[in-house]
């Protein structure tokens, strides 16, 4: 065996540590730049009017993104109402019966859905909902978002429930508790923090999507609460304003980006808080 001196090994150690540190700093550069840039350009347009007013026609100064804020909230709400019950149920099924044939087919389907580009899901929602209903609508946008959120929630639920110790389940079954009640009242509550984390991540993902909304929710310069009508959303507003030729609209796009960024960051922080606070100790 070749002798390697301790000195040399320590030097190698230090070089490796320095290397990983340098590379991780490089990895944070893009995020830092994006944050700094959006804050500098966007924060200046934020004021009460920006958040509560509707967009103004070209040439008039001022105007806000109230329609997009309300739209994003409503679209996420529709998406959540569809994807949370479906996703959590599918996750429970995968955790309980994942080894069966139907289980593996389900998992394959969910994992494939996770990998499908969001614009394709938008087209699917267009064909399924927009064409039969003869018009763009918030409902179709919500359905497109639900398809994006569904696999995130399903897989998070499955992973969480698989980590719950068998002993807990046995404790309930040995008390003469039926299988469905054991799953719903013992296993599911014990996994609540993990499931909520999955839901919040799915919401954060859905909130930032623009591609599937292009030909479903479509966008709307007016404030509306009617989910059968076209509806604005933050990502769409950013897209429309940023691709316009007017500098005042560019400023609005930066402001909307800033709001969206804050929203997504807040959701991520909330996720961390939820998983730390509600974590169940076994």
């Amino acid at each position, binding site marked *: 065996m070749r002798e390697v001196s301790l000195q040399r090994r320590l030097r190698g150690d230090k070089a490796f540590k320095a290397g990983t540190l340098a590379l991780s700093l490089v990895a944070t550069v893009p995020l830092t730049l994006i944050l700094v840039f959006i804050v500098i350009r966007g924060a200046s347009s934020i004021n009460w009017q920006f958040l509560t007013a509707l967009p103004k026609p070209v040439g008039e100064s001022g105007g806000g993104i109230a329609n997009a804020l309300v739209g994003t909230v409503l679209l996420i709400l529709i998406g959540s109402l569809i994807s949370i019950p479906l996703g959590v149920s599918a996750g429970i099924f995968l955790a309980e019966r994942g080894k069966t044939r139907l289980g593996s087919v389900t998992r394959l389907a969910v994992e494939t859905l996770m990998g499908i580009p969001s614009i394709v899901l938008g087209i699917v929602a267009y064909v399924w909902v927009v064409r039969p209903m003869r018009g763009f609508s918030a409902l179709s946008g919500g359905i497109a978002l639900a398809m994006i959120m569904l696999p995130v929630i399903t897989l998070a639920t499955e992973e969480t429930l698989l980590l719950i110790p068998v*002993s807990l389940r046995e404790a309930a079954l040995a008390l003469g508790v039926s299988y469905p009640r054991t799953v719903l009242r013992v296993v599911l509550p014990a996994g609540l923090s993990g499931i909520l984390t999955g839901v919040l991540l799915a919401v954060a993902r859905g909130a930032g999507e623009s591609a599937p909304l292009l030909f479903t929710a479509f966008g709307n310069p007016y404030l509306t609460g009617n989910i059968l009508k076209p509806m604005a959303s933050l990502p769409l507003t950013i897209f429309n304003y940023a691709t316009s030729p007017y500098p005042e609209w560019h400023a609005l796009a930066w402001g909307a980006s800033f709001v969206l960024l804050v929203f997504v960051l807040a959701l991520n922080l909330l996720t961390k808080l939820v998983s730390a606070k509600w974590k169940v100790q076994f």
Partner: protein
Amino acid sequence: MEGAVLEIENLSAGFDGKDVVKGVSLEIPANKVTAIMGPSGCGKTTFIRCINRMHELAANAHVTGTVLLDGEDVYRMNPILLRRRIGMVFQRPNPFPTMSIYDNVIAGYFLNGTHMSKSDRDRVVEETLRRVALWEEVKDSLYRRGTFLSGGQQQRLCIARALAMNPEILLLDEPTSALDPKATAAIEELIAQLKGTVTIVQVTHNIPQAARISDFTAFVHLGELVEFGQTNKLFTVPKDKRTEEYLSGKFG
């Protein structure tokens, strides 16, 4: 046997077609402590899990033979109703982590959707916690999570959870194997106090413990019942050579 609450005849059970318990026949007397003793991996746990039909929940499990509870074949009963009559405590304490101490005690009722008035709940919780000698220690923290308790207290809470359902039989699967000596002593004392009001079947690989707590002992080796009898007789004049060798520490 006179006063047998459980009659087990030719019970075989195992996994993947391989028997872990091989043709065990045994009658368990009512309101006594029966120890199922034997070296690790001899099928003790599988044996008692056949009594409340927990064994069949495992994948690829099989079981043959009969288990009679008060003369009734448990394999013809609804397993859910059976398990309400036979309580079980596991090797590691497993209180429900999302529930308070109070809720853990009445978890059997709550999870089964049995409606109880507040005064009934309070009474069951206090009575049961007094029965397991935990009341004085936890009466001021009833609404804290059960998982905040020490290991020994958690195990007594799990015994309380099983006792609250008023079972005819209590199955204890090495309930002290994860506990320190002091907590173990507390559990043994508790078993001595419970005896007479409930039939206890306890699995143990701890020879002195079987000698201390049980009225009857079954010695199981490699899945077979080697010897069964009154504990003082089995320990002083074992009939089978294997029992003698096990008790004198030649194997196991």
